[in-house]
Each structure stands twice: as structure tokens, then as C-alpha cells.
């Protein structure tokens, strides 16, 4: 991705840059400009203007976790900082960067007095160049020598990971290695043990396995170069001139790769793809051309292009991305291909929210977010029509709206993938079942509509709450939920993998992962509570979060019954519940009072503290059957 081709052109670039410099809130003013197709020079310019105002500290009320990123390597990396920082700005994430003194990454990691330690990073990126990692290798080495070298290099990298984790207890990222080396044998290069090119391939394979085992995230430079061509990312002449392994022109793209990982760690990846229909999922206009007239499927190059778009969307859905439809059409017309066209890949069951009507698209996209109970800032809107794209960008700047290249559907999957909207750190069982869950929700809605009263509905759901303490199996999902739940989240504490491991090991704490199943299916893990006995006899609820899709189903009082029992088992006679306000969690301000806690403090910023006397607490009766276990 030589260019950020999914982003629109900036228009009057210089005027917009000047406006940022003059704005009261330079940060907020710069975000729209960061979301245009910036090249290297313009990326640096935006960075410079914003840094004049917000170099060290983020603006107040930014609403995301500020990142202090240490970039560690053995060659020139200075040209990549602005790309990373501006890619953060694009996502409203403030990133301060640090780079080790030339070649001194190991010394700085080891020395607690070093500038690196002084910087106090909360994220570390290892960006080792291929030349550094293959020092001493040559074509005459035996297979045994090369095997030993691979062990040595992989071991040294792992040592860096553990040094960083021990020192900073923060997420670690590792750039995979660019294969910058010309082949010596040729097609069968793998038969030459001492080939540096082969060594890089083997090292990357090793890094992938070890990164998964040790909880390190990869910046897959090797994949990017394989897709784009090595010459896009690396210029040997520049390496010899200035020891820049990644070409400066690729700084914006490199920054994207890093910032989308950082955003994913903060749970700020997009969750839902909203699709237009006519000339986006098929060629032609269904209302005019009819079922037989639209272009889709085998036999026509254009039709196969649209099939490819649908297949890409379907695969996204299979790995956890929600699909929705927003189309200016009569509902029946819009639905017809999904139900009847033999070449359709997407079927009604694949679409979680379907809005086909004659209202403007911004209103429909708002309605889709409401239907699905997710934030507008987790939607991506795909539409071939530039007018609709611009309208949505204007009305709903938090919705991502990719450019669609050259009116050719064949290019759309590549652009969507390059844009990295749906960057995910892994796939959980819940991700795979997400579409089914939305289907089950529809069945629940129908039951609710047919039940005459709330009690009858809740009883008819036949709910089971299945809970267990945190365990290594569920850990990935627990961390994912802790970092992406914004609305029903009392404290919004973003715990890391390491924090969760510490809670599991602490006898005075408990972490509960709670599933909810009913007659329509399993909702997966829908709530997480962490309690800590901070003083004898008193358990403080460090974290209480819940998925909004189970609101109104008595999960809250049932969860409290569970938490009270756990706290009593630790010997506590009271529970403390705190609420800290954010932009998004106003719905749970009075959560504890509603559950029978007594408010004992309220601060000017809107936070409050509440207490529950466990000696007199009686569990509330609910329609949810509670069992301990880990599967529904």
C-alpha cells in the first residue's frame, strides 16, 4: 500500500493545514485532515503542526488511552515516527514516541537509568532491520551452523520481549523481517542453508509461533512487502545512504500498520460493515433492472467482481464482523436477490440489520447502529456512489467511509483489506458465532413481541447463567471485552493480559467470566466482574462490565448475587462499588443504587462510590438459573 488509497483526497490542503494551526483545539481540528490521503511530506506537516500544541501530552477529554510508544531497533527509524503519530491521530489516539540511541536498544532495555526507562513506555515496538539480524551469515555456512544462528537470533529477540514486558508490563509488538536479500541459488533457494533470504523466511516463521505463545503482536512487514512488492517498501540505495530500511515514502503506511494494532489493543477496531446494494453488491439497479437484469456471478467479468466483493464480506462475517445493509430501494425489491438470485453469496441470514427505504443514508446508518446496539464509530460504510459517501462523511464523521477505486468491484476487497478497519488480534469462539447471535436476538425480539408481559417473556427465555473464575482458556476474550466495552462499564479500567494473569494469581481477588445461554442459543461471555479485597472485610469492585445486548434480562441482579457470594467467601462483610464517568458510560451512573447499594460519596466530576452491607444482603430472586462451569 504505497498510498492510503482508501482515504479521500484532501482538497485545499494548505488552507486546511493553516486552519488547524489557528484552531482552538488543534487536535480535534486535525483529525479530519489526518483522515485524508496524506503522503510522506503532508504527514510530516500535520504532525509538526499538531505537535506544536500537543507534543508531550494529549489534549484533555480525548476519551482514548494515550500511548507512549518506544520504538527500538538498530537502524534509522526517525522517519517513521510521524507516520505512526498521525495514524494515531487518525483514530483519535495520542501517541508519543521514543527511539533508542543508535544501536543501543539492548543497553537501554537493561539499564533502569536509561532514557528509555525514563520515557515510561506503555507500548514497545521492536523494529529490527534484516541486516542487523543476519550479521555474520554467509553462503558457505553449514546447515548446522545456520540452525544454531537461527536459535541464537530468535532467542535474542525473545529476550528483548521479556526484558520489555518485565520492565514496562505493557503490550509488545514485533516487526517481522523484510527479506531484502537477493537470491543466490534461485528458484530452489531453500537448498542453500546459508542463504540470508531463506534465513529471514525461517526467522519470520519462528517469530510467528513464538509471538503467539508469548502474547506479542506482529507488525507484518513481510506480508505487506509480499503483497506490494519489496521495492515499494525497501530501497537498497536508501539503506546504503541513510540506513533507512523502510522507504520514507512508506512512513504513512508503516504508521497505519502500527496504529491499527494499537487501536485494536484498545478495542477500537471497527465491528460492522454496512453495505450499499446497487452497484456495490451487484451491477445495475434492482428496482429498474429486476432480478434477471442485475449483473452478478459467473459468466461476466463485472459480475464475478461483485461476487468477489460478496465473498470477501461473507468471510469477514465468518470471522466476526457484522454485516448490515443500507440501500435506497423498496424493501421487497432490495430483499429479492438475497432470497432468490442463484448467484448471491450473501443471504438474508448473513445480514444482521437490513435498512432498505427512501430515507437518507445517514439516518439509516444511525438506525443500524441502534438496531445492533453498537457505536457509530464501529461502522464502516461501503458505497459506490460518491454523493452518498460524502453525505455520510459530512453527517457522521465517526463512520469510516472508504473510497471505492475506479468503479471496479474487483478492487474493492483489496482496498477494504488495506484500510485495516477490522484489524483483530485473534479470533474467539464468540467472533465466529456473531452472526448467529444476531439471528438469535431476532428470535428473542419476536418472543418478546408475542409475550404479554415482561415476566412471561423472561420466564419463557429459560435463561442459564454459566460462570467461572478467569482461566487461561477464556483469557483472550476477557481482555478483548475489557478493552472494548465502553457503555456498560463502571470503571473503564483497561486491563492487559498481564493484569489478568496477576488477578488470577492473587488469592485476595476474584475475576468472574459470565456467560448467558437461553432457549435460542448461547450469548457467549456477556459480563466480567473483578473484585479485590483492598482492606480486610471489604471487597471493592474493580471492574464490572456487561454486553448491552443482554440489557433488561435480569443479568445485573443475578450477577450481584454471584459477586456477593464470592466476596463473602473471601470473608468480606461489605462491597464497594465505584462509578467513573466517561463520554460513553452514562447509562450505568446509578447502577449500584439501582441494585440496593447506598451512595456514600459523589464527586464533582460525576463519579460516585456506593456500599452494600453483605451481612444483611439477601440475594434477589430472578428468572435466571445459575450454574458454575465454562460451557453453556
Amino acid at each position, binding site marked *: 500500500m504505497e498510498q492510503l488509497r482508501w482515504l479521500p483526497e484532501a482538497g485545499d490542503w494548505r488552507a486546511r493545514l493553516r486552519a488547524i494551526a489557528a484552531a482552538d483545539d488543534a487536535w480535534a481540528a486535525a483529525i479530519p485532515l489526518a483522515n485524508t490521503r496524506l503522503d*510522506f*511530506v503532508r504527514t510530516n506537516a500535520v504532525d509538526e*503542526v499538531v505537535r506544536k500544541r500537543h507534543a508531550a501530552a494529549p489534549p484533555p477529554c480525548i476519551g482514548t488511552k494515550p500511548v507512549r510508544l518506544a520504538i527500538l531497533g538498530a537502524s534509522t527509524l526517525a*522517519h517513521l515516527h510521524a507516520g505512526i503519530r498521525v495514524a494515531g491521530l487518525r483514530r483519535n489516539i495520542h501517541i508519543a514516541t521514543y527511539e533508542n540511541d543508535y544501536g543501543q536498544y539492548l543497553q537501554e532495555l537493561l539499564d533502569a537509568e536509561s532514557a528509555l526507562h525514563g520515557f515510561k513506555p506503555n507500548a514497545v515496538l521492536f523494529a529490527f532491520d534484516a541486516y542487523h539480524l543476519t550479521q555474520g551469515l554467509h553462503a558457505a555456512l553449514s546447515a548446522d551452523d545456520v540452525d544454531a544462528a537461527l536459535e541464537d537470533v530468535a532467542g535474542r529477540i525473545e529476550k528483548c520481549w521479556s526484558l520489555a514486558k518485565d520492565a514496562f508490563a505493557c503490550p509488545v509488538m514485533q516487526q517481522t523481517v523484510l527479506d531484502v536479500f537477493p537470491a543466490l541459488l534461485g528458484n530452489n533457494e531453500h537448498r542453500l542453508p546459508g542463504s540470508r533470504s531463506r534465513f529471514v523466511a525461517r526467522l519470520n516463521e519462528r517469530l510467528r509461533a513464538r509471538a503467539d505463545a508469548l502474547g506479542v503482536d506482529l507488525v507484518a512487514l513481510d506480508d505487506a512487502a509480499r503483497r506490494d512488492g519489496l521495492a515499494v517498501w525497501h530501497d537498497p*540505495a536508501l539503506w*546504503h545512504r541513510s540506513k*533507512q530500511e523502510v522507504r*520514507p*515514502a512508506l512512513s504513512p503506511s508503516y504508521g497505519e500498520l502500527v496504529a491499527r494494532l494499537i487501536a485494536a489493543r484498545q478495542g477500537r477496531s471497527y465491528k460492522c460493515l454496512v453495505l450499499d446494494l446497487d452497484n456495490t453488491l451487484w451491477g445495475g439497479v434492482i428496482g429498474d433492472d429486476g432480478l434477471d437484469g442485475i449483473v452478478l456471478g459467473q459468466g461476466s467479468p463485472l459480475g464475478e467482481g461483485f461476487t468477489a466483493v460478496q465473498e470477501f464480506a461473507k468471510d469477514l462475517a465468518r470471522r466476526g464482523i457484522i454485516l448490515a445493509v443500507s440501500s435506497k430501494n423498496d424493501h421487497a425489491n432490495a430483499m429479492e436477490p438475497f432470497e432468490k438470485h442463484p448467484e448471491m453469496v450473501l443471504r438474508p441470514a448473513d445480514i444482521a440489520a437490513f435498512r432498505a427505504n427512501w430515507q437518507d443514508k445517514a439516518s439509516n446508518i444511525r438506525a443500524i447502529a441502534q438496531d445492533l446496539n453498537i457505536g457509530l464509530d464501529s461502522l464502516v460504510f461501503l458505497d459506490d456512489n460518491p454523493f452518498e459517501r460524502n453525505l455520510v462523511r459530512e453527517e457522521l464523521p465517526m463512520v469510516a467511509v472508504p473510497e471505492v477505486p475506479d468503479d471496479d468491484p474487483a478492487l474493492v476487497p483489496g482496498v477494504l483489506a488495506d484500510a485495516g478497519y477490522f484489524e483483530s488480534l485473534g479470533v474467539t469462539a464468540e467472533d465466529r458465532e456473531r452472526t448467529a447471535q444476531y439471528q438469535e436476538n431476532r428470535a428473542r425480539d419476536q418472543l418478546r413481541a408475542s409475550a404479554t408481559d415482561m415476566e412471561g417473556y423472561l420466564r419463557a427465555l429459560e435463561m442459564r447463567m454459566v460462570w467461572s473464575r478467569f482461566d487461561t482458556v477464556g483469557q483472550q476474550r476477557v481482555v478483548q471485552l475489557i478493552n472494548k466495552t465502553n457503555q456498560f462499564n463502571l470503571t473503564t479500567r483497561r486491563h492487559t493480559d498481564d493484569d489478568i494473569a496477576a488477578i488470577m494469581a492473587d488469592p485476595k481477588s476474584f475475576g468472574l467470566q459470565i456467560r448467558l445461554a437461553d432457549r435460542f442459543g448461547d450469548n457467549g461471555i456477556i459480563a466480567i466482574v473483578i473484585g479485590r479485597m483492598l482492606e480486610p472485610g471489604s471487597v471493592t469492585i474493580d471492574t464490572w462490565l456487561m454486553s448491552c445486548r443482554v440489557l433488561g434480562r435480569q443479568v445485573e441482579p443475578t450477577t450481584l448475587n454471584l459477586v456477593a457470594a464470592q466476596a463473602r467467601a473471601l470473608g468480606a462483610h461489605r462491597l464497594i462499588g465505584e462509578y467513573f464517568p466517561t463520554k460513553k458510560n452514562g447509562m450505568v451512573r446509578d447502577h449500584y443504587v439501582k441494585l440496593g447499594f447506598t451512595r456514600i460519596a459523589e464527586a464533582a466530576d460525576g463519579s460516585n462510590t456506593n456500599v452494600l452491607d453483605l451481612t444483611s444482603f439477601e440475594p434477589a430472586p430472578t428468572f435466571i438459573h445459575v450454574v458454575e462451569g465454562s460451557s453453556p
Partner: protein
Amino acid sequence: MTDSTDIYAALTEIFNDVFMADDMKLTPTLSARDVAGWDSFKQIEILVAVEARFGIKLNTKEIDALKNVGDLADVIAKKTA
């Protein structure tokens, strides 16, 4: 685009972008000594922008031989001829 006026017009835009100015006056003898902030980093920005703008690639010898804006304009003219 080999016309010298066009090359200078394009270079002026590039220099304005790189140095975040509106009014750079480019002359053949202008060099890094004359412009505040024209360091090795800005030099790379200029070269990246020139290569993208003119669709050319400067080789190591050509870059090493650059002493001022005139040299840059000459090499652009040669490579776009």
C-alpha cells in the same frame, strides 16, 4: 515536463509544502545553507516529493552530486526529457 519554468513552479510547491511556507523563492543557486531548517531530514522529504511528483528515481550518484536547486532542476529536466 522538461520546461524549466514548469519544473521551478513544481519545485516551489514542493518546497512550500516541505518548509510549510507560502512564499519560497527558488533560484538555481539556492542551497541548504540559505534555508533555515533544511537538514538531512528535509532533504529526504524534498527528494521523496520530487520522485513522486515527476515519476522519476534519482540514483546514488545523482543525489551525491546535488549542491543546489539548480542541480536538482537540471537532473529533473534530464530524467524527464
